[in-house]
């Protein structure tokens, strides 16, 4: 194993394995300095670099070559060098460029959050709250598409899509055969299937989980409920095709939806099969473990009783404790 490299992000130094990306190094530190990511997905090889929300400024290239990088770089695809210094939220340039990217991502987005099933757990919604403008400067008709049913369980609402390519990578990497992809070019691009084939295989449902917006939605859950009225619990079952570790979303005594378990960055821990996701919607099918941990910044936590847990790396490192002081105090209060 080669030696670890040191990287400083917004003044916080962390030691990581060589080959780690800036984004993953930032995630090891945790807290506010983690750049947002709309298209990067740590479980999918080759993802990232497309949405440009995770751009950061590299103010010092490395110990050997201290020159800064000329352009802002996509932190999800740039690997760290020893002695690299990165500025994320401490650089006004980065914040301005990021708000530009958010504005641009939203110009063709329908902003139909009030009727969108993803609202409440939507990455784009969170990003818009944090970096977006109150008003759009775009005064033209937005691009529209017809809704398409891809298979009997998944609906594609292309208007909302931000073309992150996550669902394409998912189909490539966890299913045998990909039947959907990107058609056309530029802002006419759309996710679609070849002559409206149904996406039909055991793991197709995972495209719903990886979608950062409400473009791919679960037809068994559509318009059933708002996510913040449901209570998530971790559960598992003995599944012959997948690991069977899921989150059940309860409303009263009914399981309204089954999803894979997601980490604090909204990425699934293990992909689940369609049987678990669409067919096992009774409490009797599952062994309940515990309430799902929900970040206290999420709207889903509004009637949820769990406290936030700082990352293990923060609990062990003194300097990180200093940097995350406010959040640690909050935890102690609970």
């Amino acid at each position, binding site marked *: 194993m080669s030696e670890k490299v040191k990287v400083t992000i917004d003044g916080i130094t962390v030691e990581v394995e060589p080959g780690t990306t800036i984004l993953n190094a930032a995630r090891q530190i945790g807290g506010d300095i983690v750049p947002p990511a709309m298209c990067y997905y740590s479980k999918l090889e080759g993802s990232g670099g497309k949405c440009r929300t995770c751009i950061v400024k590299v103010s010092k290239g490395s110990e050997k070559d201290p020159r800064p990088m000329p352009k802002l770089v996509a932190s999800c695809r740039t690997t760290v060098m020893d002695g690299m210094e990165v500025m994320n939220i401490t650089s006004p340039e980065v914040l301005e460029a990021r708000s530009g990217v958010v504005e*641009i991502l939203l110009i063709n987005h329908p902003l139909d959050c009030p009727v969108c099933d993803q609202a409440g757990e939507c990455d784009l919604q969170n990003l818009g709250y944090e970096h977006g403008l109150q008003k759009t400067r775009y005064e033209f008709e937005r691009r529209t598409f017809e809704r398409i049913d891809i298979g009997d369980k998944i609906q594609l609402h292309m208007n909302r899509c931000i073309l992150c390519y996550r669902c394409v990578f998912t189909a490539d990497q966890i299913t045998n055969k990909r039947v959907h992809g990107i058609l056309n070019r530029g802002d006419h691009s759309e996710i679609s299937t070849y002559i409206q084939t149904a996406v039909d295989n055991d793991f197709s449902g995972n495209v719903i989980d990886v979608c950062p917006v409400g473009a791919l939605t679960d037809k068994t859950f559509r318009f059933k409920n708002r996510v913040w009225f449901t209570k998530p619990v971790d559960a598992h079952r003995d599944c012959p095709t997948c690991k069977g570790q899921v989150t059940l979303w309860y409303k009263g005594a009914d399981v309204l939806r089954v999803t894979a378990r997601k980490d604090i960055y909204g990425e699934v821990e293990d992909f689940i099969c369609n049987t678990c996701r669409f067919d096992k919607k009774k409490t009797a099918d599952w062994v309940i473990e515990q309430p799902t941990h929900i970040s206290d910044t999420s709207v889903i936590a509004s009637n949820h009783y769990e406290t936030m847990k700082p990352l293990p790396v923060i609990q062990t490192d003194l300097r990180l404790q200093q940097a995350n002081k406010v959040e640690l105090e909050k935890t102690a209060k609970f």
Partner: protein
Amino acid sequence: MARKLLLEHINVPGINTLDVYRQKGGYRSVEKALKTLSPDDVVEEVKKSGLRGRGGAGFPTGMKWSFLAKPEGVERYLVCNADESEPGTFKDRYLMTYIPHALIEGMIVSSYALGAKTSYIYVRGEMMPQIRILEKAIAEAKSAGFLGKNILGSGYDLELYVQPGGGAYICGEETALLESLEGKRGNPRIKPPFPAIAGLYGCPTVVNNVESIAAVVPIINDGGEEYAKVGIGRSTGTKLISASGNLVRPGVYEIELGLPVEEFIYSDEYCGGIANGKRLKATVAGGSSVPVLPANLTLKLANGDPRLMSYESLSEGGFATGTMMGSGGFIAFDEDQCIVRNTWNFSRFYHHESCGQCSPCREGTGWMEKVLHRIEHGHGKMSDIDLLVDVSKKIEGNTICPLGDAAAWPVASAIRHFRDEFEWHVREPQKSQQTNYGIARYAEPIASGLKQEN
């Protein structure tokens, strides 16, 4: 007459056939390189020549070649980028149509230098006649023993293939070209890794422009130092310029770098002045992606010295008062041309050609196009002009490949230099539909030109 290295024999009848080409000294460089030089010697000669990439970025070719990784037991590839689709650039098509063997000769020498056993010429899909010409020329070269196994008894094998593209502008970006060549959707890759480390099929690859590869032939024939004597400063050698627009004689010209822009436009040896006795209003010096300049800044630098056709002189003054050499697509606009309409037209092109992979370019180019369309058609608002500047800033530098920059620069520079014309379009929506803004002060001496910008 200025020295010509690439187009010297362009007017010889039958130069597109192997026999005539050989009579005029063709394939000498292949014999010289394969029989007397080692691959490293060839790279060294190209380094000495100071040849800079002719595709647009102007990166030194010898340097690019020396970056090529050479792991044991892994194939290396040379790919020729003939996906020429920049509006205003047509020099590669001209070269391939009339002297296809110059490109093939260059490909053999360059492949030898890089140790590539298979090389590709990726030609834009619309250029079907050129593809046939190249294929015919390759067959001729192969039957004469310049391609195939054991070329000229040197033990060096090379197969050369022509690959037609699908006709997308983005496939001229080197990593998108490699994706397309591999049979995938032509989306640019995220760099690093650069193609010199992992390119075609994951192997080390060099991608060069047609003209850069053809320029290797005179470099090997005469020696790198001799080539470096042509030109000025770090811009060595000759360059093909595709001149178009309101010129008396548009066409492809081979110039020695360092030629004054004024001489290029007005001398009878080159473009012969502006057509119909009109006055020059503006130029785009290096293909549609580079900043547009008003006439006064085209001919003179900000300090009053004449501007030269060279990489350094054209970019003198940065983007405030300069432009770029680009791919050498020289477009001249006379006093009757409308800069707003032209900017909208360029913007429409980039909107259409954006691959749609990364968000700033996908959404931003469309946005700019719509705003420019509105201004051009008399529905604009004053705030639109600042909006355009702002959107172009948000695209520039934030994208995966340079197409975002290329889309942003013409818009930003047009507003920088021709802001009063944009304002006139907004103020006079009716009039702007019927008449043109005219030349205004764009051709006046620079002092007043600069003042007007402030």
